[in-house]
């Protein structure tokens, strides 16, 4: 965990002058990941760092407080990631990369995931593959489609739909594969260095492959306040 953070730190400050580095500090009312609460439906604090090189290489790290099912207090999730992105013309671009999600004091749930996708200005689609999602012992595929539209100079509306294909952790001989859908719709407003997002998030299942508390509600409204630096 600390080693990962140190690598990101060194990476961030040993960069050529052409690189661009940015960050966000965020507070969310509920950390929803693919429709599932990773914070036991409580607020979470997050930090994100990103690095972009003009050649197309990108790297970064994301950290968030989480509340795991089998732990009493809050833990920390860290996701270092890296990849390569290029524009294709006609407003399209593609990217491929990988990330590694690790949890303090709960290494059994660590997992790696590769991702690849195509983006236009307003729409992006992405596919993720993890050989051992959240350390549950089976491979998963996650596909998502995101869209956003600028309605005024600083106000966007956005929507998201995603589907996770995983092995059923329950009665595996009857329905060995399960699909879990999640949707999100909301608005995002920029105020200079601040961004406020209000979104409705929903998932079609509360019983999941995730090692987190089962949510009382399949859907919720999430408020997200972030400051960039």
């Amino acid at each position, binding site marked *: 965990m600390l080693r990962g953070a140190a690598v990101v730190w060194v990476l961030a400050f040993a960069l050529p*002058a052409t690189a*661009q580095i940015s960050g*966000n500090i965020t507070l969310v009312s509920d950390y929803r990941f693919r429709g599932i609460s990773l914070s036991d439906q409580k607020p979470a604090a997050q930090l994100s760092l990103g690095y972009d090189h003009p050649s197309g290489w990108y790297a970064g790290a994301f950290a968030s407080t989480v509340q795991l099912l089998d732990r009493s207090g809050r833990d920390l999730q860290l996701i270092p990631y890296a990849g390569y992105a290029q*524009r294709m013309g006609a407003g399209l671009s593609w990217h491929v990369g990988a990330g590694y999600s690790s949890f303090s004091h709960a290494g059994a749930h660590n997992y790696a995931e590769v991702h690849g996708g195509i*983006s236009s200005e*307003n729409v992006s689609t992405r596919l993720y593959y993890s050989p051992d999602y959240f350390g549950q012992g089976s491979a998963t595929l996650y596909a998502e489609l995101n869209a*956003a*539209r600028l309605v005024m100079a*600083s106000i966007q509306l956005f929507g998201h739909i995603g589907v996770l294909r995983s092995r059923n952790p329950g009665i595996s001989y009857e329905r060995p594969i399960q699909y879990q859908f999640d949707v999100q719709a909301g608005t995002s407003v*920029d105020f200079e260095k601040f961004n406020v997002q209000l979104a409705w998030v929903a998932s079609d299942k509360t019983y999941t492959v995730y090692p987190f508390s089962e949510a009382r509600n399949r859907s919720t409204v999430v408020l997200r306040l972030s400051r960039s630096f």
Partner: protein
Amino acid sequence: MVRRRWAALVLCMTLAACAALDGRRGEALADRDSNERKILVMLHLAPPHFRPDTAYTRSYDSRFGRDDRRRIADALAREHNLRLISDWPMPALGVECFVMEVQPTDSPARRIEQLALDPRVESAQPMHVFQALGHNDPLYPLQPSGKLWHLAEIHESVTGKNVVVAEIDTGVEVEHPDLRGLIAAARNFVDCSPYSAEMHGTALAGSIAARDDDGIGIAGVAPQARLLALRACWQEPRSGSAAFCSSFTLAKALQFALEQKARVINLSLAGPHDRLLERLLNAALAQGTTIVSAADPAVIGGGFPASSPGVLAVAEEDTRDDSAALLLAPGRDIPTTALGSRWDFVTGSSYSAAHVTGLVALLYELAPSIQPRQISDALRAGTLPRLAANRPVMIDACAAIARATGTHACASAVTRQAKSLPGQ
């Protein structure tokens, strides 16, 4: 109760955002003289990609990355004794464009040379000033230009329906009775003030797309096109009706036209060669968009952007420029829409370009997959025998439609014309 609280929160967010709208975009750029001291500095804009916390927002509008580009721009401004004025992301080129002002005692050319060597800078260039072409001239007698192209007959089968046309010029009178309802979007890229109507833009809009069969005024060449009225030029009161634009305002409008997937872009203006604009024009051509530019009659070859490769350069029919690259179209004594819900007569290559823009919209309706190169070839397909191959080509709308689409939209007109030719 909870729902009411969320509703109140959404309302507060909206009101606060409206109050903050565009404040960051800084001061007005509509000052021709101060533009001479301004330069454009481009920084790399990373392509959109995976980030764990910003999956759902528009790529270049997310806060991520923008602050660091601002920091770099601030540092560059400090190091090179410049004043940072404004910025605009241009994802079509993978850059964010910053406008900076050179001190009055300093040389813009020297600063550009120094900035171009800085590894943080993608490119740098002067801020050029462009001028809208053509002039209003109510003294010329009425001479309906539509006759040459058999517009009434063409409109029986094609009207440019739903083809997106971007007019990048001064503001358009959106509520003009002959234009009402056909403007799909009106945006101001000049300054933060509300969108305003001006003479040149309103006249062009009428020539391109004024409503037909409405019992008033005129009929545009493509009366059912969807017009994007993009104000990137401004009319300067002290210069009469003359209108000016800058590299920055034009680039912002071109970026918007690209985002909106405009099929045709009308640029009835001219100025010095501009690298940033040429890159955006090339991006548009690569996207299959046709660019129509008025040729400056004072410059051989038409000036920029008319002289840029792939751009259709259009002059009025009695131009003295005999460059073979030019296309000729009606541009003298054109009745068109004017400010104050009026109509007036105009003359100039601006309006010739507007006619061709409308004609290209007709071609796109008939052949949606046609490419800019094929459109250029079709517009050169004259039915009349040409006296010399190396002279500008007078556009024949009927022949162009027939060549591009195989459709005889005005077969009877062509027949009448053929019969009237001596020796045939």
